[in-house]
């Protein structure tokens, strides 16, 4: 049964997942999923997934469920035909930056190039800082 699949696609451990789900607090936009009505037959789900024919779903499932989903599909078909509003393409293009996109690399991933002059500058700076720190540590109070 497809309903019994857990997140790994295996058939065990389902009850634990459902318990976790039911004990989880619902947000204000959510509704409890558990309903008193009997679950839809697997054959109806298979039909909706394109894995079974309508007659199979009616034979082994519920004709009421099949009719309900055929009715709902009228609206879903309309939604499947929805297209982007005509003005939106131009609106997006107008909002794009004028310059070409460039790869932004964080400083810690950038390549460091050490030239002789930069090495001298860095070395001198470190020596001066070390000397200053040493003088500060060994300074004796008068």
């Amino acid at each position, binding site marked *: 049964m*497809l*309903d019994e*699949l*857990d*997140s*790994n*696609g*295996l058939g065990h451990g389902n009850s634990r997942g459902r318990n976790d789900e039911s004990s989880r607090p*619902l*947000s*204000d*936009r*959510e*509704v409890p*999923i558990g*309903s008193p*009505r009997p*679950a*839809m037959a697997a054959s109806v*789900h298979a*039909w*909706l*997934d*394109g894995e079974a024919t309508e007659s199979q779903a009616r034979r082994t499932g519920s004709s*009421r*469920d099949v*009719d*309900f*989903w*055929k*009715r*709902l*599909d*009228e*609206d*879903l078909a*309309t*939604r*499947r*035909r*929805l*297209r*982007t*509003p005509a003005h*939106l*393409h131009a*609106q*997006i*293009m107008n*909002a*794009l*930056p*004028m310059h*070409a*996109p*460039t*790869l*932004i690399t964080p400083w810690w991933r950038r390549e460091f190039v050490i030239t002789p002059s930069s090495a001298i500058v860095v070395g001198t700076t470190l020596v001066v800082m070390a000397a200053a720190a040493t003088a500060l540590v060994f300074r004796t109070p008068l």
Partner: protein
Amino acid sequence: MRTTEPEQLVDQDDSDQRIIQRVLAGNRDDFTMLITRYSDPLYRHALCMTGSPDVAEDILQLSFIKAYQHLAEVRGRFDAWVFRIVANGCKDWLKNIRRSHLSYDEDDQPSGFATPEEELDRTELRSDLDVALSSLPASLREAFVMKHVEGRSYEEMADLLGTTVGALKMRVHRAREALQALLEEKYA
């Protein structure tokens, strides 16, 4: 019930990469090819996740701007990468906003319903389904929309969301059960 195949072709990676290279080389206008190619399924996703055309447009615009700015960082499929930007934008919006329901305007498609009564029924069903969808947890709504509105296969969904086919089947099944529980009294 029929589910449609995603509109983008499977073997478009090379083409996308060539467009990306041209945009990175300074041909900014070529980016519109990527927008045209992928905006429709992304718009449907954002609209069904948020229930608001204005919000969906904002999310799509911000997502494509973000995609443009970080285009040099694309590794792998552009469509999967930009989908994740849009999906995260929708989730962020859902986390931050508190509202119950916003219906969207009629699409541009001609109506296939003959009478005003049928048109009224259609509008009512759409509104009720919007409310029911908005009451689902975001993860269930996302899975349901990807399956039934975007027409994606479970394998593609798993690839895009970085989870397993089994987990997604369970989410879609639970979303169906919840929607039917909410709507069947009126529509069954």
